């Protein structure tokens, strides 16, 4: 896969070079070409998909009502952005996801830490927790609708629930992976329990926690869209439903692209944050 992508990138660049009639590439140029090809590689698959989409629409492989041509989707996107609908709906969605995600993450840290630190608590709570998390978000919906209605709290709860699970599980796991050698050192120095937690357990857990938080964000973002699909009158998920109900699938596609782009951007920033946390960790904890 990456090999073909690389070739395609190289080829594209090769044509450019020929057009400009430059002398044969030096070894240093070659290295730079290769570096460029690596940077282009991730764009090859999207480009192929886009080309397939455009051709499919042009040749009538799919009904244009179901999958509108890319230029139509782009026009709709521009129109959405210009009218301000896109900004207002995105803001609402982001606000929902941030509140729900923050609540779910904090609760998840607390629950995971409690589970990780106390074997007794774990014995009482973990099996029920594991059973409950197997129930999909949609399964809770009728019950929650009855309890809290269709307002904002419903969205916060469902998003928080989605974020809670990965954070709890990764906190629990993180708290259980203090290197045995360091544990021994702590015992020799007669660390108190709080000292052990602050200087050993938490620092050792940081990378696992970071992964959990990143996963939690993905889950929260997905839950947001599901929640807005079901009961809402604003937000990006709602734009998708509204477009479907008005049989304007270009609106659906434009919203889907925005949802994907924002989710990707958030994931990338959390990724970078995670890498920095890892780098900042004392070397004793690195394997």
């Amino acid at each position, binding site marked *: 896969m990456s090999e073909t992508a690389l070739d395609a990138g190289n080829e594209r660049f090769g044509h450019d070079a020929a057009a400009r009639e430059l002398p044969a590439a030096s070894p240093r140029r070659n290295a730079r070409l290769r570096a460029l090809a690596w940077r282009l590689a991730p764009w090859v698959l999207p480009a192929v998909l886009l080309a397939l989409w455009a051709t499919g629409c042009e040749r009538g492989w799919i*009904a*244009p*009502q*179901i999958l509108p041509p890319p230029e139509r989707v782009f026009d709709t996107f521009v129109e959405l952005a210009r009218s301000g609908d896109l900004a207002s709906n995105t803001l609402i969605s982001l606000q929902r996801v941030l509140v729900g995600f923050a609540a779910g993450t904090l609760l998840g840290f607390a629950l995971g830490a409690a589970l990780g630190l106390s074997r007794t608590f774990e014995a009482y709570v973990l099996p029920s927790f594991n059973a409950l998390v197997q129930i999909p978000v949609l399964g809770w919906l*009728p019950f929650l*609708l*009855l309890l*809290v*209605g*269709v*307002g904002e709290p419903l969205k916060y709860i469902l998003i928080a629930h989605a974020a809670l699970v990965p954070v709890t599980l990764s906190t629990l796991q993180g708290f259980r992976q203090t290197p045995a050698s360091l544990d021994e050192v702590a015992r020799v120095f007669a660390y108190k329990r709080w000292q052990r937690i602050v200087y050993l357990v938490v620092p050792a857990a940081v990378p696992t926690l970071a992964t959990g938080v990143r996963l939690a964000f993905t889950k929260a973002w997905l839950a947001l869209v599901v929640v807005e699909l*079901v*009961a*809402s*009158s604003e937000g990006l998920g*709602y734009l998708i*439903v*509204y477009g*479907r*109900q*008005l*049989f*304007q699938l270009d609106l659906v596609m434009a919203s889907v692209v925005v949802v994907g782009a924002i989710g990707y951007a958030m994931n990338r920033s959390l990724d970078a944050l995670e890498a920095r946390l890892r780098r900042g960790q004392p070397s004793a904890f690195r394997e």
Partner: protein
Amino acid sequence: MRYFRLLKSFFAVAALSLAAVHAYADKPAVIRIGVAQQGNGDPPTFGGSPAATVQLQQSLEKEFAADGIKVEWLFFKGAGPAVNEAIANNALDFAYQGDLPSVLGRANGLKTRLLLASGVRVGIKIAVPTDSDIRSIKDLKGRRVSIFRGTNLQLVADNALAANQLDERDLRVINLDSASSLAALASKGIDASVNDYHLYKLRDQGLAKIVYESQNDGPQFTRQAHLLVLDDFDRAHPDVVQRVVNVLVKGAQWSSDEANRDALFKLWSKSGVPYASWQAEFANQTLKDRNSPLIDPFIVARYKAVAADALKLKLIRQPVEVDNWFETKYLDNALRTQKLDHYWTRYDAAGKPLG
């Protein structure tokens, strides 16, 4: 070995294309009818229109049994909008759908013909919790109101709001499908539900009271439904279309006969909506008025109004041509052969009886 494989694929292609040609020229193996309702039970059924009568009495199944043609009724929880998607995917031959969703489909290039009306002059209802202080449409201002957008409820609701100098932006509209809207109203998660005859059941259970019924304000505050056929199917099988229309006209006649009022509501109650709800729904209207299949000036005017309103409210982006959308030759044939030309009253554009 290679030649054999080549031969085999050649035969496969030949057989397939023969089958395709055969299916096109001769009778279809199955007639697929989409219904823009969730349906109730197993197999799902519905009520409230002549099309529902035909489905519950299995009249189409009987009509086509001798030819070995199967009849499939496909129900859509997503109602009219979901039916449009199925039409675009060529997954249906006929569809029972409301006025607005079909206009949305036509605006986006779906090729359909409207064959006959089925379920007309239907009102919308607005219900609120029993202890609510909302007494009329005016009181809805600033309240949480559920509307199933994109269905033919929406435009009537918008028009009723406009008659009270309100629009959707003055309310806090929540987009919920029919079943979720009933659940939310029962749990007081919303302040009001814009819905249909399903509300009577909640009212009779003491969970809601109905504060507005649009049909009382005149025929311009009603919604219409129809049976449509996909262009391709119409061109390939005009004889089948004629027979389907014949059966539906017969069903409409049976459903319009006041002598059958009791039997009709009992039949429709099999769809999960109780007998009492149908009694309430039809209390102030004659069966003939509601179940007439006629495409008269009133129906044409209503569809034009729906197309114009949809454009005004930006639900569609280009105007929809209505005049050439109706294909009434099958209906005219059926009325003539069944001697029903004068059975139903024709109405003019304003909803006044003609002649």
